[in-house]
């Protein structure tokens, strides 16, 4: 089993992985950049506006302009802050956001130079746990940044953010257990493969069919993990000014904002992978098309991207629809509704599986 021994050294393999890492990282960055654009556009459209349209055609260069602006803005580090940590915060946020993408199977393998190149950076057998591990580290970016700013609003926001993320991580994990019972593996590739080849071109074996409740919980939690409205308590403008990155400016602020969008994108990808068949194109059976493997890979990749973008869109859609929670409501939802629901879901699934096995 590949991936079982994490430290088998193969230089081509490493090169290939490095390339893939670069690709995935830049993809995430680009997607994140355009996600900021998309956010503004979606917001505008939902509010009967047009949104940015000045930079470039349809304002397509707007993200670049924003990026440029952030780069050239004055870099302010508050005097009373703890300098090293102040810098470390956004870095951590960015890194943890990017790390998640490592275990996602982006598509079927490519075939280049007679090598089957898996489009997954690391197919470790604890893929989902890895995601959870990294997500749980996401807290640090927020907390360190918020604390290092030496600003009470930042601190409050950081603590809010951290507690929110920790709380929702639980429900998130629990909601996935039922799914893991179906697949019997934590390996992402196995989970995706499990969803291939059902009826309607794979659609009927998508996990969302079997785990609708699990998906809903996961979705809500994902939203909370990304600090998206209605869970954007950490940056609730009217209470905390600007939240944990209040003291940040320039590209450090940019990192935080970027990290949020990367998170959003990755969570969309994860949701597609876990519940919506990953790179599986529904209603059709790609294998019968008899085209080159690489084309299949590209189609799969696009499918995955499409699904992810859909979720990103839904995130935005929700953001511009639903008002923000109060903090106690947020906690109540997490602890008193989602966790019990997830548990119920788990138990029911377990019984059904047992029953079916008989």
């Amino acid at each position, binding site marked *: 089993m590949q991936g*079982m*021994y*994490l*430290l*088998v*050294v193969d230089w081509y393999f490493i090169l290939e992985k490095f390339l893939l890492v670069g690709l995935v990282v830049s993809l995430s960055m680009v997607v994140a950049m355009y996600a900021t654009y998309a956010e503004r556009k979606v917001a505008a459209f939902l509010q009967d506006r047009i949104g940015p349209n000045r930079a470039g055609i349809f304002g397509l260069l707007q993200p670049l302009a924003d990026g440029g602006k952030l780069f050239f803005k004055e870099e302010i580090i508050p005097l009373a802050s*703890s300098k090293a*940590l102040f810098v470390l915060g956004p870095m951590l946020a960015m890194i943890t956001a990017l790390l998640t993408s490592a275990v996602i199977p982006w598509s079927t393998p490519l075939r280049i130079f007679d090598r089957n190149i898996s489009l997954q950076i690391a197919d*470790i*057998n*604890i893929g989902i*746990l*890895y995601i*959870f*591990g990294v*997500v*749980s*580290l996401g*807290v*640090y970016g927020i*907390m*360190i940044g918020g*604390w290092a700013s030496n600003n009470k609003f930042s*601190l409050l926001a*950081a*603590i809010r953010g*951290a*507690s929110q993320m*920790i709380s929702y*991580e639980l429900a998130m994990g629990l909601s996935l257990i039922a799914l893991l019972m179906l697949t019997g593996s*934590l390996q992402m590739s196995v989970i995706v493969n499990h969803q291939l080849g059902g009826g309607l071109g794979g659609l009927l074996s998508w996990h969302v069919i079997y785990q609708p409740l699990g998906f809903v919980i996961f979705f809500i939690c994902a939203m909370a993990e990304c600090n998206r409205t209605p869970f954007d308590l950490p940056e609730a403008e009217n209470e905390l000014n600007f939240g944990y990155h209040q003291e940040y400016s320039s590209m450090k602020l940019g990192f935080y904002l970027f990290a949020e969008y990367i998170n959003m994108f990755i969570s969309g990808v994860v949701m597609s992978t876990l519940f919506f068949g990953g790179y599986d194109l529904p209603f059709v059976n790609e294998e019968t098309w008899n085209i080159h493997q690489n084309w299949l890979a590209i189609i799969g990749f696009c499918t995955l991207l499409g699904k992810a973008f859909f979720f990103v869109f839904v995130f935005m859609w929700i953001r511009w629809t639903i008002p923000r929670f109060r903090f106690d409501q947020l906690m109540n939802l997490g602890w008193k509704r989602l966790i019990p629901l997830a548990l119920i879901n788990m138990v029911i699934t377990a019984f059904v599986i047992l029953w079916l096995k008989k």
Partner: protein
Amino acid sequence: MNVTQILFWFLSVLALFGALMVVTSKNPVHSVLWLIATFFSISGHYILLNAQFLAIVNIIVYAGAIMVLFLFVIMLMNLNKTTEPKKNRWLKLAGGVAGGCLLLVFIAALKSSEITQQTAEVKTGDIGLIKNLGRELFSTYVVPFEISSILFLSAMVGAVVIGKKE
């Protein structure tokens, strides 16, 4: 010196350095962060020993949950360098000497222990994989596993009793 050894030494040095910094840092937040670094290097060791499950659980549980709580508490209390109480220099010295002596005693005692010749297998062996661990945990160790739920319940009740404001 192959890759494994390099990794081992690197992780060991990082772990020890992190641990030392935990103890010596004036600022509690720095201590926490160094401790997290130490945990990471220990997780690295687990990966080296091919205990993947423990490696990731170590990160999720310790780094992801426990240390966040620590950070929480420290931040809420607004502890920093200035609030760190000064301990008597001699007490510090005594503590250090005691710990050092303990270390020496341990090393002296264990240097010629009964298992000196043996090695821990690195990179191979599949007992650390989640599949095997899970099977063992839910067959042989299912009773302790269930018992640990009592522990959690009591911790939960306790945290509520203690933590809630009257």
